[in-house]
């Protein structure tokens, strides 16, 4: 009888201990796995943030270099061309030759101005994003390739800071280039809106339609798309491409806390 009680006690404590241990192991696995996953996600976020910062730094350096080159072109070559023009005026040349050289200098000056402006649009610095986008759409319109219209539903001089304005301008520039190159569109509408506390920038075209997948966005070849994404992230916004039916594409850029940027 005493043996039986001893066995029952061993069984009771043994079973209780084993069950507790098993439960402890299961709870530990669940809790530890959660912590491990959270830590890993944190590390991934940090890695992504570092990548984004690196991309930002590259873009910033590129902009700085473009600005320097634009200034160099404007001040250096522009001034040199003006000096050359003055020298030619004082030269004893046949009138026709003088005119021909003068025309060539004018053409070169216009090219230098155009390149300098593309590298760093002075209108953006002087008058802000709205004026720069208006000018950009006007230039496309004047080139008579595509009917390009620009609309906005607000009047503000400086909605974004200089860096955010430049980022948005570059994004629009890149998207318009893509439309001109690939979309076979005849019409483009650029629209800036302030709606329900959000800044919305939409670019619509009537071309063949384009909707990049996540895979397209991460392809090493699609540097333009990556740059666009990075610049939009830089200003704390989101971008969405949507194919329209029967044809065309709409690109929606949305910035929620636009006042911060």
């Amino acid at each position, binding site marked *: 009888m005493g043996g*039986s009680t001893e066995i029952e006690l061993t*069984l009771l404590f*043994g079973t209780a201990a084993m069950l507790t241990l098993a439960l402890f*192991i*299961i709870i530990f*696995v669940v809790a530890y796995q959660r912590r*491990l996953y959270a830590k890993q996600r944190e590390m991934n976020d940090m890695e992504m943030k570092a990548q984004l910062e690196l991309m930002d730094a590259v873009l910033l350096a590129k902009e700085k270099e473009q600005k320097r080159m634009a200034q160099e072109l404007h001040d250096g070559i522009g001034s040199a061309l003006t000096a050359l023009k003055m020298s030619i005026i004082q030269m004893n040349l046949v009138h026709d030759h003088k005119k021909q050289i003068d025309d060539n200098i004018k053409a070169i000056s216009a090219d230098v101005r155009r390149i300098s402006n593309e590298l760093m649009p002075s209108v953006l610095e002087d008058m802000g994003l709205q004026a720069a986008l208006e000018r950009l759409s006007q230039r496309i319109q004047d080139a008579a390739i595509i009917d390009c219209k620009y609309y906005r539903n607000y009047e503000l001089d400086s909605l974004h800071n200089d860096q955010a304005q430049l980022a948005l301008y570059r994004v629009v520039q890149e998207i318009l280039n893509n439309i001109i190159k690939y979309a076979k569109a005849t019409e483009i509408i650029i629209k800036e809106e302030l709606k329900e506390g959000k800044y919305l920038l939409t670019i619509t075209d009537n071309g063949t339609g384009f909707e990049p997948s996540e895979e397209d966005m991460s392809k090493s070849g699609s540097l333009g798309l990556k740059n666009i994404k990075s610049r939009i992230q830089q200003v704390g916004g989101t971008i969405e491409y949507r194919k329209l039916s029967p044809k065309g594409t709409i690109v929606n850029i949305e910035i929620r806390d636009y006042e911060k940027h």
Partner: protein
Amino acid sequence: MNLDDISALSILIPLISAVILYRRLNKTLKLLGVFILFSAITESLAAIYFEYGWNNMIISHLYAFVQVPLLAWIFSTFINGVKKRVIFILCGAYLLFSILNVILWEDLLEFNSNQRYFAAVVIISYCLFYYTQIFVEANIVRIELEPNFWISSSILLYTAGTLFLFIYNNELMNSTNQGYWNLNCILNIILNIGLTGSLWVGARKLN
């Protein structure tokens, strides 16, 4: 209907689930379905033997002999590297021991306590191998949606909880205390619910 009957019938829940979900299951869960079917057949056979007053210990030997290789096969489908080899080595050692056990210590008409004890140690090791793999690989997002975790946890809980019961089975045969057998029934129900969970979670994950 008493707790014994409920426990015995609870095997039908994962069995029916396995039949319904069979086409949507991966290799691991299909094997688990086979394991559940095998358990249901041996349990039914044991009940029939008992009903006719025959000694059903041979069924217990058969169950324990097939159970570990089947579980080794199941665990080897999701455990990688050296641990996978260890799974089969442990299984081989277990089978060898089972044969020696029948010849030397517990024949087919006696309860196989030694074999059950060895089986429990081997099965608990498999579960622990899986848990260590989770930490090493660290690629699971939500562990509660992981069918292999459901399989390992329900098997671990049942095996650990019944280990002492099987060791002292012969001594308990004459005991009037029903509490231990009720505990076995409860753990068996939990095991079957856990296995059912793994099947549904697995089927949902694969779809």
